[in-house]
């Protein structure tokens, strides 16, 4: 069972401002039956740009209904400009938090609010889908612009979080790689695929890679200082080496082992390699 806050329970069981507004002059619709949740937000905005009244109709789970309800409470009396500054985080906070898998309910509230205000301003609806973005998740109709926004506004770090906030990738999973790339670009780091643990090495593979790394990466560096290195043994992930040449007399050989040999082997072979001196 979900661990919903008291506020979620209250707003779900006794929703505020439920039902359509007869005199609404702005309506924002997001979601669909196929998605499993949908929100139709009704606003009455006066000539000064103040939201005088709000109403909603929601198809969805308890947190979707509660998000809609609390949103209508929050925006009543706000100017349109103030309302546009609201983020999904504000909605979730007003509910005392939402389970992470339910954060997309708060995003839905924010998107419906924007859609309604765009309509009132005479702008085309759902900007992301048609203008700014490319469709990434076909199951739930989520664009890269929506994903990037969720990442930035909520400081998302993993693909799973992106799915929790936007639903993207939550059905067939075909777009998960694309989400991973978008996330990587946002975080300005290597794509997650490259960060995934490498497949487990066999002993022979490990030994070959250790030798290759020593030959190609480590030995040239030691040679620059007049030293050399010899591989003595590889036992599981424990690598025994012997430093030669000038390195063998060097008092900082321990430092060389840790900072150079072990670091490079960990980087090129396996992250949990341990190096010791014979």
């Amino acid at each position, binding site marked *: 069972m*979900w661990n919903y806050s008291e506020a979620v329970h209250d707003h*779900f*069981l006794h*929703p505020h401002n*439920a*039902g359509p507004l007869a005199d609404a002059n702005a309506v924002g*619709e997001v979601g669909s*039956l*196929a998605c*499993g*949740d*949908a*929100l*139709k937000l009704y606003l009455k905005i006066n000539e000064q740009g103040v939201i005088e009244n709000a109403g*909603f*109709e*929601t*198809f*969805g*789970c*308890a947190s*979707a*209904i509660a998000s809609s309800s609390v949103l209508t409470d929050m925006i009543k009396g706000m100017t349109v400009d103030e309302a546009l500054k609201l983020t999904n985080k504000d909605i979730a906070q007003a509910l005392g938090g939402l389970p992470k*898998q*339910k954060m997309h309910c708060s995003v839905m509230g924010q998107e419906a609010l924007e859609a309604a205000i765009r309509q009132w301003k005479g702008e085309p609806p759902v900007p992301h889908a048609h203008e700014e973005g490319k469709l990434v998740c076909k*199951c*739930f109709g989520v664009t890269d612009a929506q994903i990037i926004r969720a990442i930035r506004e909520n400081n998302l770090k993993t693909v799973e979080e992106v*799915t929790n906030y936007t*639903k993207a990738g*939550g*059905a067939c999973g075909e777009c998960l790689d694309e989400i991973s790339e978008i996330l990587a670009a946002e975080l300005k780091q290597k794509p997650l695929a490259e960060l995934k643990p490498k497949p487990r090495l066999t002993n022979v593979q490990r030994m070959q890679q250790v030798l290759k790394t020593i030959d190609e990466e480590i030995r040239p560096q030691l040679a620059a200082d007049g030293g050399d290195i010899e591989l003595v043994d590889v036992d599981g992930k424990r690598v025994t080496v012997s430093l030669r040449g000038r390195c063998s007399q060097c008092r900082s050989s321990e430092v060389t082992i840790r900072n150079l040999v072990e670091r490079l082997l960990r980087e090129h072979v396996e992250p949990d390699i341990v190096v010791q001196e014979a």
Partner: protein
Amino acid sequence: MKTIYLDNNATTAVAPEVLSAMLPYLGQLYGNPSSMHSFGGQVGEAVDTAREQVAALLGASPDEIIFTSCGSESDNTAIWSAIQTQPEKHHLITTRVEHPAVLNVMQYWEREGRHVTYLGVDGKGRLDLDEYAEALSEDTALVSIMFANNEVGDIYPIQKMAEMARERGVLFHTDAVQAVGKTPIDLRQLPVDMLSLSGHKIHAPKGIGVLYARKGMRFRPFLRGGHQERGRRAGTENVPYIVGLGMAAKLAHDFMQEERVKVALLRDKLEAGLLERIPDCMVNGDVENRLPNTSNIAFKNVEGEAILLMLDRLGICASSGSACTSGSLEPSHVLRAMGVPFNYAHGSVRLSLSRYTTEDDVAYVLENFPGVIETLRAISPFKN
């Protein structure tokens, strides 16, 4: 507030008779059935009796009964054993509507290089026997098909499918976790090689299951170690729970005929009453051929989790195939395999009864359930 428990396909109440049968084995009768002394020996006799009780319920022989920790362990073992004893065969057959205890194991073996056929179902959840016949081949190591579906209650043609497998010399396993105790199963007539059952679905506690393995069948244990269960499942016997399951099997055996009729009548009354009182809803599954205790109803344009939480406030326990209840974003794989439209699938609710469900329970639900749907539909943007 009283609790109306209509989620018996999830788990059941421990029968009072079962609890009393177990208590001595949690108290003074703590011996190890494998011991040489009579203090352990008397406990061994209780395990033997339980084995006979379970065998009697299934029409099996006691030495074909292997006690396990749960239905999932039984399913894992059945699939494991079939694969290990026939390494030359690379094909497995199952359905798209299996419980995850089989489905995820099949997907695991698929990743390990086996070829798996997932049989589809029609709109009522019925399997296509022609598709099945075509899938069976010399290379098939195992067919694993559930006896009855946990979500919609459909009963599959296991007799026919097991016969077809046997004709082709293919091993057949059935996950009968939902069927045992609710519908007659006689393994003297039914040519399945392995069958899984779970204690907590038939009024025994959680943490005990059975794998039936037909005599003479080649078998490889999943859990290795001691010689318990004739070397087919290591681990000191979970004596109190085995005794409890024996008693639960005895109760099911003694009262099944009577209870099936009683439970089915209440279920039908509940289902017909809801369909009559609530517009735009439909029954999921094959009403002609399903478990007597299960009703899966889809309510158009409302969402299942919201229904469950409102029912919960009324003390009514049910479950849903909606996406939101599971934390996944898609409705149940069973309803999707059946092609239930989205506007119904998200609003599906499963009501599952037991021998302890009463007329009063049904009346209370019929009185209160319609209001829940009405409330939620009033705030839904989709109008019927």
